[in-house]
């Protein structure tokens, strides 16, 4: 019996120390890890989306609280004037989660472009959402008034051949970002002003 108690005590003490220590470490390292992911994974996509920007959109990002969620928003300046906001969004595609960056031109109230960052779609079909620039290019300049949709859904975006579900998911994610933008517009524009200063 005494041995039994010792076993349980030793195991629980070890687990508690290990769990506590790891929790502490994770808290300390989280910001550094986020920065790494920002630079290595999202950075290139954001910069690609904001090719014409005169600033560093990754450096000029800010965070905003939306209910329980914290959104990260990248800012792009054209000729020194910050006016493009890049929002993150996601939707379920054919293979799983599909993540999207949506650029919104705040002055002209239109989409400045989209980029798929990560996806699990079928290679050669759905993966073209990321790999084929002509699909993403269709979103450029679309007005925010009307939600984007693929042609079969009475929209203007021609779906990727053989991957209607993926194309729909991209549209859905883009619409979500537009909705978020409209909801948070006052707050977002305020933050944007801060960046310009």
């Amino acid at each position: 019996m005494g041995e039994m108690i010792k076993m349980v005590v030793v195991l629980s003490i070890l687990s508690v120390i290990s769990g506590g220590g790891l929790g502490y470490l994770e808290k300390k390292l989280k910001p550094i890890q986020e920065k790494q992911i920002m630079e290595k994974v999202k950075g290139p996509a954001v910069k690609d989306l904001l090719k014409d920007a005169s600033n560093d959109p990754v450096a000029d990002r800010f965070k905003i609280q939306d209910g329980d969620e914290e959104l990260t928003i990248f800012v792009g300046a054209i000729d020194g004037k910050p006016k493009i906001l890049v929002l993150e969004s996601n939707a379920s595609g054919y293979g799983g989660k599909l993540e999207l960056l949506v650029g919104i031109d705040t002055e002209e109230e239109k989409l400045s472009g989209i980029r798929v960052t990560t996806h699990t779609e079928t290679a050669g079909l759905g993966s073209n959402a990321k790999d084929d620039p002509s699909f993403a290019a269709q979103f450029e300049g679309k007005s925010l008034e009307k939600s984007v949709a693929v042609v079969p859904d009475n929209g203007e975006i021609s779906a990727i051949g053989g991957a209607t579900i993926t194309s729909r998911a991209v549209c859905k994610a883009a619409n979500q970002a537009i909705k978020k933008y409209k909801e948070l517009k006052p707050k977002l524009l305020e933050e944007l002003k801060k960046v310009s200063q």
Partner: protein
Amino acid sequence: MAKPIYQEFTKGLWKEIPPFRLVLGLCPVLGVTTSVENGIGMGLATTFVLLCSNILVSLLRKVIPSKVRIACFIIIIATFVIVVEQVMKAFVYDLYNTLGVFIPLIVVNCVVLGRAEAFASKNGIFRSILDGLGIGIGFTLSLGALGLVREFLGKGTITVWGEPFFEGPIVNLVESMPSFVPFEFMVQAPGAFVALGLMLAVMNLIPSK
């Protein structure tokens, strides 16, 4: 324990060098040695876990009840593996991505658990540190050597830490000798087995003493 204490360190470098003399922990050996830097990176991560777990197991060897010792070892090892995972994710993100699944798998690397069970749980802390360091460095050297052979033959390059220390590969046969065609088989899956098997044969030619 009549052995001189320095031998606890040196045995890991030659006499019991994993995975050649001690045929354990083969998965990372085969999986990540497509280049020198991946091999060495994996080796160092394993060394860290091995050293820390050896120290802790040796310190706690009198407290841990023998019936649940394996469970305790696994908790200790897994904790340090997560430490390595988190630290690598924060500071060497590219390497973290390349090694991928093999980092969490250090936890089931037989070398680490094997040393905890066979050595650290029976020996004092000082000897355990030397043992951990020796075996760890031996493992790193093996991975580096296999990575060197495979990368040199398979890609014609030798890369030692691309960005932070050197710019690009330090040797590049493909550029300096256009007639060289890389033997790509070596960096692909089957080549890993063949390369390791042949290196083992070469090691067998040299007597262990």
